[in-house]
């Protein structure tokens, strides 16, 4: 394939929106010297369309997953450039599924949308104890902490983590967003999180809004 740069980016965009493989277009883009920033921008725009299609009921969880896979193909092609530090991230997020809960699909989708928007994401995995969130905040100094809980029985872990953030003096240094089937808007308010009870795409949009507001305040 020998395409002009704009064509490559258009093909990449369409492939992502239509849930096709993006590997060949990303390789072509890399060969043409298209920057990771341009790729991230295209991926982000395409995943916004995917997110809207999900909200409008055209796409479902299966499509979000496949879109995530297509986006991942892109970033894998550019992986060595990430390791060289060529990417400028818009913010940093620490994400995990809380202690006692092993579900990760929602968390993984949230991470996919965050990365597509240009965030650096530290994925703590599942069954993450409150203390591990605190250690991650100390180590990585994120802008945002994201916690996921599918089971209502694990909601106390969220509350405990937020309390620990307060005790360690981190609460006013990070935004907290919580999600998962167990999280209601009432719970978000009750535990003092900054946002939550929304789906993965909307959650990522909220995170982007936060970092943009933070940037404008400086």
């Amino acid at each position, binding site marked *: 394939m020998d395409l002009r740069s704009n064509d490559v980016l258009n093909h990449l965009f369409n492939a992502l929106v239509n849930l096709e493989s993006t590997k060949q277009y990303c390789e072509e883009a890399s060969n043409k010297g298209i920057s990771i920033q341009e790729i991230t921008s295209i991926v982000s725009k395409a995943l916004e369309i995917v997110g809207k299609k999900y909200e409008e009921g055209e796409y*479902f*969880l*299966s*499509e979000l997953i*496949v879109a995530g*896979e297509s986006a991942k193909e892109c970033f894998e092609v550019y992986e060595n450039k990430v390791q060289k530090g060529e990417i400028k991230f818009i913010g940093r997020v620490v994400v995990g599924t809380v202690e006692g809960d092993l579900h990760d699909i929602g968390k*993984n989708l949230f991470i996919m949308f965050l990365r597509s928007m240009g965030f650096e994401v530290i994925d703590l995995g599942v069954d993450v104890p409150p203390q591990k969130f605190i250690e991650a905040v100390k180590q990585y100094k994120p802008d945002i902490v994201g916690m996921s809980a599918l089971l209502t029985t694990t909601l106390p872990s969220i509350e405990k983590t937020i309390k620990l953030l307060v005790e360690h003096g981190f609460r006013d240094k990070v935004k907290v967003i919580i999600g998962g*089937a167990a999280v209601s808007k009432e719970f978000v308010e009750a535990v003092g999180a900054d946002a939550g009870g929304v789906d993965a795409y909307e959650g990522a949009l909220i995170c982007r809004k936060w970092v943009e507001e933070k940037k404008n305040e400086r």
Partner: protein
Amino acid sequence: MVLSHRERLLRVFEFKGVDRVPNYEFGYWRETIERWHGEGLPLHIRTSRDIERYLGLEGLESLEGLPIVIGIWPPSREVVLKEEEGKEIVADGLGGIYVRKKDASATPHYIRYPIKDREDWKKIKKFLDPETPGRIPLSWSDVAEKYKDRDYPLRVFVGSLCGWLRDWMGIERLSKAFYRESDWVEEMIDTIADMVVNVLDKVLRDVVPDLAWFWEDIAYSKGPMISPKLFEKYVVPRYKKITKILNAYGVKIVVVDCDGDIEPLVPGWLEAGVNCMFPLEARYVDPYKLRKEFGERILLMGGVDKRALVEGGKAVDKELERLTPLLEEGGYIPTVDHRVPPEVSFKNYMYYIGKKKEWLEKHHP
């Protein structure tokens, strides 16, 4: 009018008059039964079936099931590989490894699914051979004779076309396979459907059950895990293979057990001949909306909001009142919309059961 249990079930689902609607419930979590043992449930009552008998319910655990094997056969044997605090790492016998909590009813979390690729599938496929001995009792003619003049309903489990694949592969791998390797997905669903049809063909000529039962669990709070587009293209045609043989032998009630918001999948199921939706989780599904949209084409089972039982008292009364028009119309059998969770006290549950019995006597088609 005094009807047998079987007549009640069949007439309700034919929108005909009955003496009362069958009194079924979905079941109870282990933690619920443990809680209730401390609140008055006799200690010798240990299982959902025990509770049904204790309370005089007619099902669903107590419903007689046709004793054939649809699914993985011979059964896989689990081995606990490692024990850690509060949890176990388990090999499922099919190539998968999962983590499960000790002493809890949570869904196991796979760290390695049984099927990653086509090679793994080839190994699993051998367990779906319809000709493997033991799927049908060797004394089949005696078994068939038993059901000849029954006055109770007979249920036949007819498998799972999506839920099993989700269990064996994970929704992420399955979703990718639908888009990147659809031929493989079609082959897997065809294998399952053909196994079901093959076994049914051998038994339905001798025994005609009253209802068939699919299990799927491919929906959640936000809707189906797989899109209706994929569902209708790849799965509905395979359901039709199974419902065709069921209908040919006179099995008219075909239930699908699927939690979550199922509404986008209902048209596909109805087109496929799957006509009874269960358990209608009240938080996500409006049975009145389904009845309005699909009329008497759709049968309904479930729908009693478990959250009303958590609250108890007037909340239960209000919930039963909400469902009264649906009950009186026919085509609907109420149950709590999932297994009763441990947040429900024994006192509240007994209140609900007492009120439900009166309600079923008073209101019916």
